[in-house]
């Protein structure tokens, strides 16, 4: 799955997700990719979020909606990402998933559970894409 967030020069935010889902899924199964607030969510007033992992579990918690709403209430991206992941892990200790969060100022962070996660970033102060590794 790719989940992507972009803030353009006007400060407008868009997010998107594209995936072919889990391998050997039961035909008809839909993951969290197309569920608003699960694999991605964004609001110009607050920031954005992208996620990857076990969509069958993640879609039960709408973690990206949670991240954006936590940031709206004043949480920093890193705390918001960790909080969203911990809410899932508390109920599903074996769950595998990850999240990145970015606020409207451009501060970004990631959190993960059950695997090592990487996310990619490019902004105007970078010469090329930078990859950030997050450990569970």
């Amino acid at each position, binding site marked *: 799955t790719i989940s992507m967030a972009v803030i353009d020069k006007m400060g407008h935010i868009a997010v998107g997700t594209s995936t072919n889902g889990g391998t050997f899924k039961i035909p008809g199964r839909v993951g969290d990719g197309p569920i608003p607030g699960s694999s991605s969510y964004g609001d110009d007033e607050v920031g954005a979020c992208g996620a990857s992992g076990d969509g069958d579990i993640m879609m039960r918690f709408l973690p990206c909606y949670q991240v954006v709403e936590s940031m709206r209430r004043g949480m920093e991206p890193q705390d918001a990402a960790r909080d969203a992941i911990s809410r899932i892990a508390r109920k599903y200790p074996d769950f595998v998933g990850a999240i990145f969060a970015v606020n409207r100022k451009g*501060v970004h962070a990631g959190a993960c559970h059950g695997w090592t996660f990487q996310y990619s970033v490019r*902004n105007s102060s970078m010469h090329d894409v930078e990859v950030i590794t997050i450990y569970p």
Partner: protein
Amino acid sequence: MGRSSVRLLVGLLLLRSDWCLAVNSGGPAEVSGAFPLVVSTWPFREAVRAAWEVVSASDGGGSAVDAVVAGCSACEVLRCDGTVGPGGSPDENGETTLDALIMNGATMEIGAVAAMRYVKDGIKAAKLVMDHSLHTLLVGEKATDFAISMGLPGPINLSSPESLEKWRNWRQNHCQPNFWKNVAPAGSCGPYRPISVAQALDSVKREVEGSQGGACQEWFQSDNLLEPINSHFKFIDRHNHD
């Protein structure tokens, strides 16, 4: 601007610089330079570069929405990790279907497609839903019909030699692992029928004992009895995830 105003401005700039450094040193969080900004799950560099090209263009830059479409489309073409676009993640019938979503954070508009068959452009189909309907999510072959009617190419077979090979190997491995629970047969391909937890335990025990002698005793004495039968076969990793 008076001298005191200049001092104030310089002071504020220095203060901001210190704040950035403080946040940078605090952990994985980073402070960006000026906008635009592109962030993506996984080390999908080409996807981020594609989005960056759109949003950073010297003629004022494209919109965030257009950049997301460009970035996700790049991953669909490149089949990033086999988890994006056509030719990956076959289902139990060996078929690849696509899920995609796009959201405009300025207007809170969303378009999405789910379990879409026969169209390879997932994110473009999602944007068509957002731009040309009042709905949020279309699914299955009706999503396919919509996408094709709006001009996307199709219908086309989304399988690849690699995805079909992976599927054939899985069939030869008795359709293991899989996503079923509390069904019989537990250790082979379907068709499956629902059974109670007690029946499922008995069924698995017979199957395991038949193939391994008494080797399943330890498993049956563990906390696995608390789990729905088959769920311990679930597998999520870098190349199999949403």
